[in-house]
């Protein structure tokens, strides 16, 4: 049993939202993060699709971990992940062709999202099914929140709208660069800066409190 088993279940879930956020802390899955976040709807759909694939594949990997020989584990994980990506691909086509067109090849590319394979290898293959599900839900939600953070800024500035609803009226001149690929890098850089700043402040505050308690 891994030493991660001693972590309280709530921590397993919460760490993906902030402390080990796959995008803002670990910089994983950058390809869809930059490519599909030009609107809130695209970000939401990609986040939901990734969350589903991550949760299902982590569950199955945790369930089968004792039967999968180490030598073929990566190949097995890839088959499992590709299965659920195919499922998502068909389901999105059944829900909306427009959404499917908007997300383009990035649905199929969830197969090679290093976050999903990373969680299968680093967590699900060493933990029980409930913990693997909690970890996947936390990481998936953290990934979705990160996509939404980027998508919201890019759509509001680049298109003057939020979820398709016009915010500023016809006089607003959209910042087209925000929905172009460079806009993805600008906004990601801004969010990374913000997260690093908040973490630095939080660490400094903890250090100050520790010093005070030692001094007292």
């Amino acid at each position: 049993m891994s030493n991660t088993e001693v972590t309280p279940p709530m921590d397993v879930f919460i760490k993906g939202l902030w402390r080990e956020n796959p995008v803002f802390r670990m910089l994983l899955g950058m390809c869809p993060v930059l490519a599909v976040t030009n609107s809130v709807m695209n970000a939401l759909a990609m986040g939901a699709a990734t969350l589903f694939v991550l949760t299902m594949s982590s569950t199955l990997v945790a369930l089968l971990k004792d039967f999968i020989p180490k030598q073929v584990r990566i190949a097995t994980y890839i088959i499992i992940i590709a299965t659920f990506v195919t499922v998502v691909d068909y389901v999105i086509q059944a829900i909306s062709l427009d959404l499917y067109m908007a997300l383009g090849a990035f649905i199929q590319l969830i197969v090679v999202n290093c976050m999903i394979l990373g969680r299968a290898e680093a967590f699900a293959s060493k933990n029980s099914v409930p913990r693997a599900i909690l970890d996947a839900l936390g990481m998936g939600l953290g990934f979705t929140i990160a996509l939404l953070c980027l998508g919201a800024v890019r759509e509001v500035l680049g298109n003057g709208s939020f979820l398709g609803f016009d915010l500023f009226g016809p006089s607003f001149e959209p910042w087209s660069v925000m929905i172009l690929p460079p806009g993805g890098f600008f906004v990601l850089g801004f969010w990374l800066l913000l997260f690093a700043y908040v973490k630095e402040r939080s660490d400094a505050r903890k250090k100050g409190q520790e010093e005070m308690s030692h001094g007292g």
Partner: protein
Amino acid sequence: MNQSAIMSDSPINKPAVSSWAMFRTLCGVALFSGLIIVIVYQTTLPFIQENRRKAIERAVFEVLPGATQRLTFSVEADGPRLITEDEVVSTRMYAGLDGSGNLVGIALEAMGQGYQDVIRLMYGYDPERELIVGMTILEMRETPGLGDKIAHDPRFLANFEALDVSLNADRTDFINPVVAVDQGDKINPWEVDGITGATISTQAVTRIIGLNAKEITPYILEHHDVLKGASS
């Protein structure tokens, strides 16, 4: 350090996993995967087909103003053949009919290279007046904010409300070639007014429609009576 402890950690001494165990695992997971995919495919197929049918229907009615019904034809050497929706054929076209069953025009699909990827579009052709009467983009990956204006810019789409594609007497070429011009320079009905900042995309749309129309419109005019007869 104890020699036996070192030896027990060595990968050589780890119990070997049999080839059968690896084969069994991969085959088992692949079979499970196949089963899941087949079930999901069979479940979602009717919804996907319905979505595609609706998308085509929406596009046909969009590019043929006044059409309320449609018929699907297969383009064949000996003339157009009325087919069912599900029939698989190499090239198809859609006849748009008004409420009284009169032929409004023919909707055609065309595709070609855009700036970033293939552009797939549908346009409506009125054989009576030899005009293109509508155009809509079905699929594209043009630059957001620039090239993708070909799908939404009302001024650009207005080019295709009455674009002249009249053929010469022997129906081998257009009387006037369909060309894209700079934004604001359109004078003649066979010119397409471009979009500043989306030059390559607008030229691509013009080229795709021009090439496709040059190939298919002689066929439609030749079999116009058949299309009208089948429609009524």
